[in-house]
């Protein structure tokens, strides 16, 4: 499974539709403090079903919707879409097994109304989670290291570290 593009629209500091095209190998995101780099990481987590507002640095989930700047108004919803390509050794699971490419999307309205999509059809959050279970996208303890968290497994308890082994099993 490979990621080919990530699209943000109204998510955190990205009010305008912004597309990242991912190639093979290493994609580096660079820029000044507060420019939005970690927000891109948050967008990935969020798109694939993150339920904790706190883990996205917010106090409520609607905190991820662009809240405006000094010269721009807030927007009414946040949307992130992730496009994936299947590879020969990692086809998509279940009903999507025949597809070469699919798009996972999530939208949250300021009203609190929340939607998940696979290829433009509405699905439940759990459908997205199951689809991506083995992809390591956003849900994997050892392939998703957030800012300031690198030595977390050193300061963690032996019990918490055990969870890493379980994840790799």
């Amino acid at each position, binding site marked *: 499974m490979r990621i080919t593009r990530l699209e943000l629209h109204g998510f955190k500091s990205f009010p305008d539709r912004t597309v990242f095209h991912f190639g093979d190998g290493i994609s580096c995101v660079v820029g000044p403090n507060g420019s939005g780099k970690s927000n891109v990481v948050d967008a990935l987590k969020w798109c694939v079903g993150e339920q904790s507002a706190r883990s996205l640095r917010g106090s409520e989930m609607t905190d991820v919707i662009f809240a405006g700047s000094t010269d721009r108004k807030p927007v009414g919803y946040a949307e992130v879409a992730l496009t994936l390509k299947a590879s020969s050794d990692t086809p998509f699971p279940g009903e999507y097994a025949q597809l070469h490419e699919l798009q996972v999307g999530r939208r949250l309205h300021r009203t609190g109304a929340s939607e998940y999509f696979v290829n433009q059809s509405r699905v439940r959050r759990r459908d997205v989670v199951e689809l991506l279970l083995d*992809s390591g996208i956003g849900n994997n303890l050892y392939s998703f290291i957030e800012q300031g968290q690198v030595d977390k497994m050193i300061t963690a308890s032996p019990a918490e570290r055990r969870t890493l082994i379980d994840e790799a099993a």
Partner: protein
Amino acid sequence: CRERFRETFDLVNDHFRETYPRLVGGGSARLALTDDEDLLETGVDIFVQPPGKRLQNLQLLSGGEKAMTAIALLIALFRVKPSPFCVLDEVDAPLDEANGARFNDMLREMSRRSQFLVVTHNRKTMECADTLYGVTMARPGVSRLVSVQLPTG
């Protein structure tokens, strides 16, 4: 299930004992079960000895040494069960030049089989990128993607 945990633990441990010295340029490291008898409840301990130093309490390690230990373990886990996609946000922040360079080498190696999204302020790390995304706020509060030129030399 106990079997599987034991197998995975041993595999990860074998890799960890190899990734750590490669990553920090010497020394040794290993994992240990807190309770060998109870594979369902046991925790996992880490023992690490940086090059030329004695085995000591993990907490006494320096900021950079802790980060390198954690990274070596992550690489070991990654080798046992590679994710197609891996996100690292400023993990290179505590590393000095020598450790940063060895980290970049292993990163490049792992990126041959998986996609990596790496957020960094570090010039040397940027130089390893296959693709470079610049994020800026020319209009304050509004993020935009820009193409980035790394000055050469």
